[in-house]
C-alpha cells in the first residue's frame, strides 16, 4: 500500500485499488508479471522460471493438458489446475500440446507437473495481490 501510494503521489499511473486487481490478473496471465509491474524484479523472475520450468517439463514428459470438461471430478480439477497457468495453458491448447501418453509412466508425472505449475502460479498471483494491497512488502 505504502509503495503504491508513494507511486501515485509521484505521479504514477496506477492507484492502489486498481493495482490490487491488475497485479493478480497480470500474474495469472503471465507468470511473474504481477510482481514485475510492482517492480519486484527478482521475485517475479524466480516465480516465472519456476512456473515455466514446471509447465514445459510437464509438456516435455508428454503430460496431459486437460480441456474444459464436465466428466470425472479429477478431470474437472485437472482443468482448474491447468488453467492456473494462464497464457501458457491457452498456448498449449492452441498448439495442441499435452495430448498425454498412457504408455509412459513419466507422462503421468508430466500431467501432475502441468497441474502444479498452474496451482503455483495461482499462489504467485495471490502474492502479487498481497503486495498490491500492502499486506506484504
Amino acid at each position: 500500500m505504502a509503495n503504491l501510494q508513494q507511486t501515485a503521489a509521484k505521479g504514477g499511473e496506477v492507484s492502489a485499488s486498481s493495482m490490487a486487481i491488475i497485479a493478480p490478473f497480470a500474474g495469472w496471465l503471465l507468470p511473474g508479471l504481477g510482481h514485475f509491474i510492482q517492480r519486484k524484479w527478482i521475485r517475479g523472475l524466480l516465480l516465472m522460471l519456476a512456473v515455466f520450468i514446471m509447465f514445459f517439463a510437464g509438456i516435455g514428459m508428454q503430460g496431459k493438458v486437460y480441456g474444459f470438461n464436465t466428466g470425472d471430478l479429477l478431470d474437472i480439477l485437472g482443468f482448474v489446475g491447468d488453467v492456473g497457468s494462464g497464457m501458457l495453458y491457452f498456448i498449449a491448447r492452441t498448439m495442441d500440446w499435452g495430448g498425454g501418453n498412457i504408455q509412459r509412466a513419466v507422462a503421468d508425472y508430466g500431467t501432475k507437473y502441468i497441474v502444479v505449475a498452474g496451482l503455483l502460479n495461482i499462489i504467485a498471483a495471490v502474492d502479487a495481490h498481497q503486495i498490491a494491497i500492502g499486506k506484504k512488502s
Partner: protein
Amino acid sequence: MTFELSHFTAAVIFAACASTVFGITQRNTPRDMMRYGAYCFALFVGGVIVAAWVMWAIKH
C-alpha cells in the same frame, strides 16, 4: 520435445520449483524466503527418500 527423467530427478525438479514459489510467497524478507525455500526443499527431497526406504522395507 520429449525427455525421459528418472523418478528422483523428476522429484528434485518438482521440489526445486515448488520450494522457490513457497519461499517467495510465504515469507516477507529475502533472508526468510531463502531459509523457508531451503527448508521446503529439504522436506520435499527428504520425504521422497524416506518414502523410498519405507517402500523398500515393505517389499522386503
